[in-house]
């Protein structure tokens, strides 16, 4: 083991790439207290990891997860209609691939990260206990993602608009495939459950809460007193209530207050509206922070150019305001995604709700650690993907450079 302890000279800086051993020496074992801390931390991590691995391989009974995989993912969606979910997945994956390709058209085609992720997904498809047909479709979808990514890089930029239109059109298509009607067998919203409902709730929540939040933020800065008063009142009332209180009002109180002959609005709808209104108030405050960060000169310059107020907002104010608050906005989206779990308190069977229902199966009674670890892992994957996507977006928009 040769150590480079060369005397200081005027030579150019030493290469910063250290061997792992040198790195550890420099960072972990440089002083006596760091040595103690490192050893203690390693011991704790090692023991914890060992305990977990021993438990996961010997004591845990993962059958509760593998036997109920369909329930976790698609919930009570009727088995014969699962093809509709596959189509939805295909549409979303195809569009995501194209968009992803477009966004990274200038980079190299095959980076190590991309290959690793693709290989990881392929291995996962091979390992998870699903039927051969599902495995085949999943493999096909992975292929679709890669092809769409490749195609997206080749598409000329005039297709940008079409891509946006396709995303907008995918919403009604997805809803039609989920709900049925117009020639398809109907599926009750009470049968939308599991991860499907969690993702649906999060996507619908973000899709509606974000524009509403932007409007509220603009409303709070408006010069019209009534608009400003209403926006401020709404934001402050919503922020003053806990989400569970808002959901309680929507799901328990509202049916008592509505006249009976109005009928009962769909439970899922009531829950989602509560979630959207609540998140919109928080998003509004984040966006307001962004609006305040835009220098006044920008506004004055825009007005001097003769832009009308709508154009000032749309072309000058919002693009700059939103760009600065992307990290905070994505934080709001991630917390909205996790807050969908509160819907389970009111009998909507999202991922956490279906987990509890599976745990009530006497065959799997007491397997809660396995079930909640699995559900927690799923939540983590989606939240992590969201924050990665936000980082990429920040980089491509150059948030920290301008």
């Amino acid at each position, binding site marked *: 083991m040769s150590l480079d302890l060369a005397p200081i000279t005027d030579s150019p800086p030493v290469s910063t790439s250290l061997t792992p051993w040198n790195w550890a020496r420099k960072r972990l074992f440089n002083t006596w207290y760091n040595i103690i801390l490192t050893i203690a931390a390693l011991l704790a991590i090692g023991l914890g990891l060992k305990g977990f691995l021993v438990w996961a391989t010997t004591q845990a009974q993962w059958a509760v997860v593998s036997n*109920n995989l369909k329930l976790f993912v698609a919930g009570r969606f009727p088995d014969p209609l699962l093809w509709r979910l596959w189509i939805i997945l295909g549409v979303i994956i195809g569009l995501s691939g194209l968009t992803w390709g477009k966004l990274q058209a200038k980079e190299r085609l095959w980076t190590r990260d991309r290959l690793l992720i693709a290989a990881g997904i392929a291995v996962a498809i091979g390992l998870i206990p699903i039927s051969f047909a599902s495995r085949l479709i999943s493999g096909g979808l992975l292929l679709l993602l890669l092809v769409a990514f490749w195609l997206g890089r080749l598409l000329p930029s005039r297709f940008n608009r079409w891509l946006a239109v396709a995303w907008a059109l995918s919403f009604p298509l997805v809803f039609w495939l989920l709900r049925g009607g117009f020639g398809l067998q109907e599926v009750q919203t009470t049968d939308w459950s599991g991860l499907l409902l969690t993702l649906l709730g999060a996507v619908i929540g973000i899709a509606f809460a974000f524009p509403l939040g932007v409007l509220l933020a603009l409303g709070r800065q408006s010069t019209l007193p009534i608009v400003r008063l209403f926006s401020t009142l709404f934001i402050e009332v919503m922020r003053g209530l806990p989400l569970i209180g808002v959901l309680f009002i929507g799901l*328990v109180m509202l049916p008592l*207050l509505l006249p*009976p002959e109005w009928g009962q609005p769909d439970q899922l709808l009531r829950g989602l509206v509560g979630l959207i209104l609540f998140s919109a108030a928080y998003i509004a405050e984040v966006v307001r922070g962004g609006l305040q960060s835009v220098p006044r000169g920008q506004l004055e310059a825009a007005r001097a150019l003769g832009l009308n107020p709508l154009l000032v907002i749309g072309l000058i104010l919002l693009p700059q305001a939103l760009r600065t608050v992307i990290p905070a906005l994505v934080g709001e989206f991630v917390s909205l995604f996790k807050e969908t779990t509160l819907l389970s308190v009111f009998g909507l069977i999202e991922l956490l709700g279906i987990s509890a*229902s599976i745990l*009530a199966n*006497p065959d799997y009674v007491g397997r809660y650690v396995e079930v909640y670890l699995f559900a927690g892992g799923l939540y983590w994957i989606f939240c992590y993907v969201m924050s990665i996507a936000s980082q990429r977006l920040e980089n491509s928009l150059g948030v920290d450079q301008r």
Partner: protein
Amino acid sequence: MNSRPSLRFKPQSTNVLRNWLSISTIALLTALAGCAASNNQSQTASSPAASASPAASSPAASASPVQVEPTGLLAQVLSRSKIICGTSGKVPGFSFVNTQGEYSGFDVDICRAVAVAVFNDPSKVEFRQLSAAQRFTSSQTGSIDIISQTATVTISRESTVGVAFGPVILYDGQGLMVKKNSGITKIEQLAGKSVCVQTGSTTILNLTDQFRKRGIAYKPVSFDDNNATFAAYQQGRCEAVTADRSGLVSNRSKLPNPDEHTILDIVLSKEPLAPGVKQGDPQWANVLNWVVYVLIQADEFGITSKNVDQIAQSTKDPDIRRFLGLEGDLGKGLALKNDYALQVIKQIGNYSEVYDRNLGKDSPLKLERGPNKLWTDGGLLYSPPFR
């Protein structure tokens, strides 16, 4: 039994809801006074009036030769062609989602039995998972037809909350579990010891009441989660754990060595569990009542899903013939088909079959019948006669 204890009634908050409800009902009735006569909805909304005059819409209990027309909720259910059943979905043995994605359990089978009686099809039920806070308001507002959610029958739930409970389907009670080697057999021996208990329900109140009554000091160690309560007991943080006896049994089966624990022969409180409907619709309440009684009476007659067809063909017993709808008009009196009992038994089974497959010896829970035996076997289950 995670959700059940926390579902207990909270008088003040519900009174507020109740006041709101009656205010809105009065406002609505005033508004609708002009056209109320032809409006079916307003009839169900004016529940106190309807229940005060049972003779108006309740079919006579004695066999009537005329087919009674379905009204109120039953008519709504028929036109919707499915029953909406409120259930917890999260209580082992009572209601859960099985691996095939179907609802299953004791509470679930009650709703399926009603679906068989009304539609001759156990699949015509839509289950709605309800929380503690929602379950009674959901039945008041009519968003569910039946509430089958391990609800304890209490006076305040019938008087102030407005639930019309059906027959008791399970006599449960709060019990105490200890480790066998502790040698504890009586509640007095727990003096100065700690007891694990789940908060947010009457479980802890019953516990306090029982210890106060006996003048014994003890240390409650409370948790807001069922799993945490039993995990603490397992780790030895308390000498005993209390919950409903059915809950004790199902949780004991999760412990590493179930045989090392024993459930004391003490009942701290009565927990009679029953399905319910909204008050003010006697016809619909009758349907629920006499479907549950079919399960119990079939057990008493010794009729099971396997032998019901054979008995229907061979029996000469007039009681059984009336019961199965081979003669008389008992079913028609409920505005159902005459052979509804036969179909319920054939497709759902009798009480023993339902109990055994969900809670008893054919289930992983292996819950003893205890008081839930027929009155002829020394239990509490008793069906009024079918005549």
